[in-house]
């Protein structure tokens, strides 16, 4: 629950700053270009996240590899388990 509250707090903080800059709530008289940049920020963050996700998926697809040692380990464990079960009288 605390993690959720942390995230909610952070998101609302960023959202408040964004609203302050975009709608000029405090009459900071920022240059117009700043507001033009700040206005599509949420969508920009979303697009960046999408690009990052796509790149991660692509990179993992490109460098996908076999886990030969893990395969050997698993085969060994299967053998062990079969012998153990046979000792205990299970027929396979």
């Amino acid at each position, binding site marked *: 629950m605390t993690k959720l509250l942390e995230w909610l707090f952070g998101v609302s903080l960023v959202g408040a700053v964004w609203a302050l800059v975009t709608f000029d709530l405090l009459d900071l008289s920022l240059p117009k270009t700043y507001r033009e940049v700040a206005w*599509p920020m949420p969508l920009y963050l979303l697009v960046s996240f999408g690009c990052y996700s796509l790149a991660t998926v692509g990179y993992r697809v490109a460098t996908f590899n076999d886990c030969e040692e893990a395969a050997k380990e698993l085969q060994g464990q299967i053998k062990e388990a079969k012998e153990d079960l046979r000792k205990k009288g299970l027929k396979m």
Partner: protein
Amino acid sequence: MATGVDQAAGMSLVVFSLLLFTYYSVWVIVLPFVDSDHVLHKYFLPREYSVILPGIAAVILLLCIGAFTAVVMWKNRKPKKAD
């Protein structure tokens, strides 16, 4: 191991996302600071489209996900009713 096709597909995904990120960053963040009569503006659509196009893309994506979920659930429900 990843085959040649896998590597090509993965790398093209990475390159595509990097290109998209760079283009969108320039469009949204750099362009407001460039004079409006600069050459750079010729290569970008008007600024409204930097919000409209991703919005349309998001709607289409959500529709596709919804349709996919509906199809999968519909296919899974049929045999249960027959049982």
